[in-house]
Structure formats: C-alpha cells, structure tokens
C-alpha cells in the first residue's frame, strides 16, 4: 500500500516546491532604502513638480488621507473637506502649492496605525499628527515638518495627578496613551512610571478612562491637550509639557509611501509655506490657544 502511495506523494512534493519558489514577492529590497532623513534637499527641478507631472493616485486629483473621526483642533466637525482646523488648512495650502484646486482634493479615511505600516498606500499623502521618527522613516516617507510638537500631560481636577508639578510626581501614577503613538513612547522614556502605562486603541477610550478615574493622567500632544481639557473633559486640567525624549524637538510631517515620487515635491511645498509665513499664520489662526502650559522637569 505504501509503495503505491509514494509516487503520487513525490509528484505532489515536487509541484509544491515549484509553486513555492515561483511565488516570489515583488522584489524591491535590491533598491537602496532611504536611510537619510526625510528632508532631502530637493534635487529635482520645479518642472518635475508641475501639477501634470505628479504621479498621484488619480491623474489630476490629489488624494489625502486622515483618520476618522478627525479631531480638533486639527480638523473641525470631523469633516476634513471643510478646510477648517490646522491640518485641514495646511493640507489645502500644500495642495494649492502643488497646483490643485480645492475641488481637486479628495479625502480618504485611514486609521492612524494603518498609515504607518509598511506597504502600498491608497493616498498621495496622509496628514494626521504623525511625528517624524527614525523607526517610522524605515518604512514610510515624511515631508518637511509642518509643526513642532510637545507631549503634554493632562488630567482632571479630581485626579490624584492634579497636584503634580514635576516628572517625579508622576512616576507613581497610572498614566495612559494611545497605542503606537509617540505619546506612549514619551511616557515610557521620559516619565518611566513604576506601573505599566494603560494602552488604549484610541484617545476616545483613554478620555473615558480618565474621566472614570481608571487612569490618573493622559499624555497627548499640546494642541490636542488644550482642546480636550477646554472642550471635552469636565474639569479638565493641563499638568504640563514633557521635554522631548531624545533631546531633539519632535515634529509633525506629512506621511507618504516609502520612496514615493511625490515626497520631494510635497516637501518643497511645505518648505515654501514655511518660508512665506503661511504655516505661522495658520498656527495663529487655529492653534493660538495652545500656548502657556508649564514645562515639567
């Protein structure tokens, strides 16, 4: 019986082997990966960034990604297309720089963690409070930064963390942050609390936990901190800003697919907005309240 079976088995084995070696992935690990920082000096001439030369997802249209729900003060009313909110405004300013009218811009919802993953994207760039980090730069491209960000600790009036004034005061508290964010990294690297941080799928969940007293304090970026404490929490309170974990200023950048042909042009657009003062203007317009929080030591 086993003799009769061995020939078909051998045939199956050989065909399986052939199948496996035939399934080689689209190979691009031969091409040198971009290990330098995202802000490469634009070696392309401005012609390469002409609107009709840009290789976007859809010809003649710009597809921009952001999360759903989209939070204030970065967006307003969870509607990125209305141009209100700092990031919505910056996105449309960049689009205009690249030669796209407001009507040529389409928005697609993209989950925060999904955007940072390696792999092809369904957008031209994503604007969603992404901090530029070395690890992330291994797998995605970033444009020039459009905002300098600080991590901020917020709490409620009744919480045990309400009276904290130094980083040491926070070590014994239960802190929380969204998974995969630089806020979480800041907790672990800058504060290094004695009990593990609580990690949530979204800031919405974290806010509820904070209100319930299930965590003592939450870490988010500064503008978000101001918005949450002013508009969303009952009796919200800002404890203070955290120093950056690596010593370099943390910055937000637009996110693009790794080695995207658009990276240089988009960076140039952001640089232009910075040099002509548009970024400052928009920050004044949308993020003015986000100032004056104490810096924790």
């Amino acid at each position, binding site marked *: 019986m*086993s003799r009769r079976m*061995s020939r078909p088995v051998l045939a199956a*084995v050989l065909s399986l082997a052939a199948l496996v*070696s035939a399934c080689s992935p689209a*190979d691009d690990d031969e091409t040198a990966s971009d290990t330098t920082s995202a802000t490469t000096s634009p070696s392309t001439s401005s012609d390469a960034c002409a609107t009709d030369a840009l290789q976007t997802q859809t010809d003649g249209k710009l597809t921009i990604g952001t999360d759903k729900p989209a939070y204030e003060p970065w967006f307003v009313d969870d509607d990125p297309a209305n141009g209100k909110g700092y990031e919505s405004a910056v996105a449309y300013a960049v689009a205009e720089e690249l030669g796209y009218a407001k009507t040529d811009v389409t928005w697609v919802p993209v989950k925060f963690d999904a955007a*940072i993953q390696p792999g092809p994207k369904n957008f031209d760039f994503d604007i969603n409070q992404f901090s530029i980090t070395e690890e992330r730069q291994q797998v995605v491209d970033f444009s020039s930064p459009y905002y300098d960000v600080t991590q901020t600790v917020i709490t409620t009036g009744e919480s045990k963390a309400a009276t904290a004034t130094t980083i040491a005061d926070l070590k014994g508290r239960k802190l929380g942050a969204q998974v995969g964010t630089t806020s979480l990294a800041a907790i672990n690297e800058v504060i290094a609390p004695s009990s593990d941080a*609580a990690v949530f799928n979204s800031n919405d969940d974290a806010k509820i936990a904070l209100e*319930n007293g299930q965590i003592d304090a939450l870490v988010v970026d500064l503008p978000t901190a101001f918005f949450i404490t002013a508009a969303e929490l009952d009796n919200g309170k800002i404890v203070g800003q955290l120093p950056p974990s690596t010593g370099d200023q943390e910055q937000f950048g637009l996110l693009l697919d790794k080695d995207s042909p658009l990276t240089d042009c988009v960076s140039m657009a952001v640089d232009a907005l910075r040099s002509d003062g548009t970024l400052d203007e928009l920050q004044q317009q949308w993020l003015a309240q986000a100032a004056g929080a104490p810096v924790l030591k």
Partner: protein
Amino acid sequence: MTAPAEAFPQLSLVEQERRAYRRGRAHRSSLVAGASTVIFLAVVGTAIVLSPGWPRVKSQFLDVGYGWEVLPDVLRGLWLNLRVLLISALLVLVLGLVIASARTLRGPVFFPVRFLAAAYTDLFRGIPLIILLYLIGFGVPGLRLEFVTTNVVVLGTAALVLTYSAYVAEVFRAGIESVHPSQRAAARSLGLSYGQTMRRIVLPQAVRRVQPALLNDFVAMQKDVGLISILGATDAVRAAQINVAQSFNFTPYVVAGLLFVLLAIPSARLADWVQLRAIRRQQAGGAA
C-alpha cells in the same frame, strides 16, 4: 472475563509463515512511511528556504533575535491572560450550571425562573462581547457607584463571565436534556427528590456528555480574554502590538500567536484524557 492461564496452543506451520510475512510487510511499510515523511519535509523545507521571498519573510515575521527580545514583554502580558482565564473559567462553569439548572426546572410554578434564565442566555449570547466590555468596563465606572470597583481587569472579567456563561449554560442544558428521562424515572422511583436527582444522576451524566463542547468554549475563551486590553490593560496581544508599532516587524505577533497555541494544546490533551478515563471506566468498548 480474565484470559485463561494456559499457554497458547502451538501454531501450525501455515500460521507461522503467515505471521512472519505480515511482520515483514509491517516493517517495510513503516520504513517507507518514515523515509517518505523525512524526504517530504526536507524537500518542502529546502524549497521554502531557497525561495526568493524567504529572507524578507524571515526577517519580517521570524526574526529570532527580536523575538527573544520581546518575549519577556509578551510573557508578562500573557500572565494577565492566564489569570483572567482561570478565574473566568471557574466562574463561568458555576454560573453556567446554575442558569442551565434554572432553565430546566419543571413545573408551572417555576415559569418566572425559566423565563429569566432564557432571557439571560438570549441577551448575553446576543450582545457582542466588545460592546459589553465597553459598557461594563467604561460605562459602569461612569455611573460613579460607591461600592463598585473601577478596576478594568475586574470589570473586563465580569463582562467575559457574563457572556461565556450564557454559551456554557446552553451547552449544559443540551447535556441535561440529553440524559434519558428513564434515568430520572429510576432516580425518582427510588425516592430521590428533584434536587438529589439532578445533583447525583442527571448532572454527572450531562457534564460528561458535553465535555468536548465545553472544551471548545474554553479554548475560544482563551482568545477572547485578550479583548480586555481595549480597556487599557496590557495582555499578550497588546504587548506584541506595542512592540510591532515601534519596530514595524511582525515577529512579536508570531511570538504571541505561538504562545497562545502552546496554551491551547495542554487543555485539549487534558480534556481528552479526562474523557477517555471516564469512557474506559464506564463502557466496555473492547476492541471495536
């Protein structure tokens, strides 16, 4: 019946030859089976390792060094899974049995009890576990009741227990109803009360019958325990996720997955052993 103590009678030549032939053929079969298995594995293994995509797959999913690095984090998370699992399993068994017994009460006077038990199983089998976790884990503390804890692990365990005892109650009920009514008749005829009949005759047989289904639910629960992480507690999967989010290497997920599989195997074998022991004791299956 025990075998007779006398020696087997001397075999005829024909029978000896037959047995020798069968033995030889059995040896040959096992040799061929062993060899072909080894060859098969070697060929497939080599084909996989030599394929062009392999180095990337290996580094993305099977980075042994990184796996070792994240193992302590994932194990710490797994410890939470285990603690919650064991406590939940016990509570679910008890609560499930109570509800099943309530649903199988006879007599019109017990209608309210049966109704409540049925409503319970309908409700908690219907509500998605995630929703219940949010409702209990975040909603209950929001009510600010003095005597109720806000600890997410406790609340999460409560949600898990409520849900799974509904499923387990139905499994027990099926077991109870599968015990032949003649068993009850015999027990009642001996003068046993309803409660004594349930406790000594019906439930022992019911539980034995549904052991495989119970094990199934137990293994499923091992995974659902991890959902508690949406409330902020860090379990094995969340620990893996945190690492993956930083490194963009999926090895931590593979590590966590393997740990879960390792967790599931002993429970399966344990239940098999218990089942087999009960069967061997009770039934004269013989060589069939």
